[in-house]
């Protein structure tokens, strides 16, 4: 299966515009960007995708070895860039995907013009003086929540979900399908997301970088935003007047404006 089908890649917006790649985080899929895409599509060539294991990606391409490390997700990003021959990419990564973008840009810096890190956290677990906000036990609790809630997923429906590349309407009919995941895959993604430590990778960032944080966010608190800002030389930090971990949904205009202002200032 080619990369475009594998990662359910969608390209929209101005064909001749600069490339903006929107990468979803742990939990849901590229639908997370639906409220900011219209504003961005007016100016940019917008590339959307689902990581393997999420959304309408090809679950057969998933393996716990590759996707048990953030490098596997970064490889998805690089695979798509190569397949579509994307250059001068402005990469917008939400949550854990912010770190995926940092890793991808470190491996192929020539492809990435700018990075937008949306509510990033390089380390969710407290570590000495570093306050990530969580303990290892908290992550186990999250795994229990994943186990209690099979959102829009059932083994019975999995064949339909996996095979719906040519019949997307099947997926749309399923409640909660935007955040559906095979529970075994979700468990691996959760562990990879919340147990990884990317603090050492921040210093490698050379592309101009915007950090977007929310005024109140239990997953990526402002101390963490300040940490990332300090760790990436020359980065810009903007605090959105938004609550929660998904400003692209709760404050789509402010989020789109901040991204546009950084990528294409008036």
């Amino acid at each position, binding site marked *: 299966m080619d990369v475009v089908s594998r990662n359910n890649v969608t390209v929209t917006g101005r064909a001749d515009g600069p490339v903006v790649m929107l990468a979803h985080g742990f939990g*849901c899929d590229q639908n*997370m960007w*639906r409220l900011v895409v219209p504003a961005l599509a007016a100016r940019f060539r917008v590339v959307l995708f689902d990581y393997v294991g999420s959304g309408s990606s090809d679950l057969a391409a998933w393996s716990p070895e590759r996707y048990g490390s953030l490098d596997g997700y970064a490889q998805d990003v690089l695979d798509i860039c190569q397949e579509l021959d994307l250059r001068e990419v402005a990469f917008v990564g939400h949550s854990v995907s912010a770190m995926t973008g940092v890793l991808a840009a470190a491996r192929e810096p020539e492809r990435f013009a700018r990075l937008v890190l949306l509510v990033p956290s390089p380390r969710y677990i407290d570590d000495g003086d570093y306050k990530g906000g969580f303990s290892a036990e908290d*992550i186990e*609790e999250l795994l229990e*929540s994943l*186990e209690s809630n099979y959102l829009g997923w059932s083994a019975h429906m999995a064949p339909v979900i996996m095979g719906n590349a040519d019949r997307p309407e099947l997926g749309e009919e399923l409640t909660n399908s935007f*955040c559906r995941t095979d529970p075994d895959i979700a468990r691996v993604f959760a562990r990879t997301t919340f147990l990884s430590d990317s603090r050492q990778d921040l210093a490698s960032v050379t592309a101009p970088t915007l950090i977007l944080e929310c005024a109140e966010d*239990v*997953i990526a608190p402002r101390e963490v935003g300040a940490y990332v800002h300090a760790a990436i030389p020359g980065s810009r930090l903007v605090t959105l007047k938004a609550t929660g971990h998904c400003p692209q949904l709760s404050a789509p205009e402010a989020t789109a404006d901040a991204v546009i202002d950084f990528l294409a200032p008036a």
Partner: protein
Amino acid sequence: MMCRTEQDPPPDTHRDSRRGPHPTDGTASDAEFSALLEDDVEDLYENAPCGYVSTLLDGKIAKVNATLLGWLGHSREQVIGRKRFTDLLTVGGKLYHETHFAPLLRMQGEVNSIAFELKAADGSRLPVLVSSKVKAGSDGQPQLIRTTIVDARDRRSYENELLHRKREADKARHEAEQARKEAEEARQEAERDRNRLQSVLAVLQRSLVPPTLPQPEGMEAAAYYHTASVDQVGGDFYDLFPLGDGRWCFFLGDVCGKGPEAAAVTSLTRYTLRAAAIHDPDPVTVLTTLNTVLHQHYNRGDPRYCTAVFGTLTPGPTGATVHLASGGHPPAVLMRADGTAEYLPTPGGLLVGILPNAPFTATSRDLAPGDTLVLYTDGLTEARIGPDGTRYGDEALLEYASDLAPVTAHKAVGALTTLLESFGDGLDDDTAILTLGINPTAPTGPTEEATCRT
């Protein structure tokens, strides 16, 4: 049948009762109906059998019912405007809310029956199912989120039980798979060991009989060895060798027991017989020598003995003279060229090696062209041929030999092999067969001067 009494209100009183209890007829149905009407909306909200909470879009709690406050152990003041909905959840639940619940609610407008755990003021946890719906204003813009919370303790313990069982089943399946793999590996290892052992045993077994049978001039010799088990060395043996003066010696026997010990006795027996024959080929002398050797060698608490036929063939002008002796062995069969068959009995011969001085008796016959001598071990006559365990027996063998005669040595072995195969599982012991026949056409004579050593 009419059941209505005078006291029953006419049907249309229900219409009146919508405005309140009827002032005059206080019947039971009216009282129930009025109780329903007195169930005011505020009380229904506050004391509903589920928790209600309304939050602003940023999650701040704007309204909460008494049921939920009771579950949480919080006062209204501690919650309204002070806590967000996620503050009521465990940390893991918060993570799940922010990564799944909140985005879905934004995208779908509602989310139903998601499992969370509420954290109560006293630190206890309450498993619940949460459903939320976004309420939009008249302009279509979302205004607030209404959330219903259902006590799911029983449901959760049931689900946990299912999860527990699933994990146990997964574990058991995994362990079973592991055990199956290990068993398969052990089986393969055992198979390899068995193959190694069998190849060793086959080599050992072959060393107890001549690799190829020599063919004396004017005669024909053939042999067959049936191995009852590839996992055991049998104790049967035979040999045929020249004395160098035109005479030939032959023997066939059966060592008591099986396995490596029996094979050692067989080996000793075979070389003792060969050496003794070179010293003095007289059959009784040879068997006596073997008896002495076996008895001396194995009499210390572990007696080893065998049965054996030993004989010599002395070529004559029209055939050969066979001279043989037996120690406890089934008698040889002589199939004549004229189509008859007879046993060559040697009565009184004792098992070889069991007593210090054992008597052996000898007998002689002249073999004419076309005559064939058959030596065999008791695997043949002891084979079970019926469901009741009936053995093949001496009489049946003699009858079979009579039917077969006249026959050459090779054809006799071929026929007897077929006979053995016909016994199937009834043939449960090793069986050796040696046949010696005088060529039917050319009469044999000595090719050199007989120089029997003494």
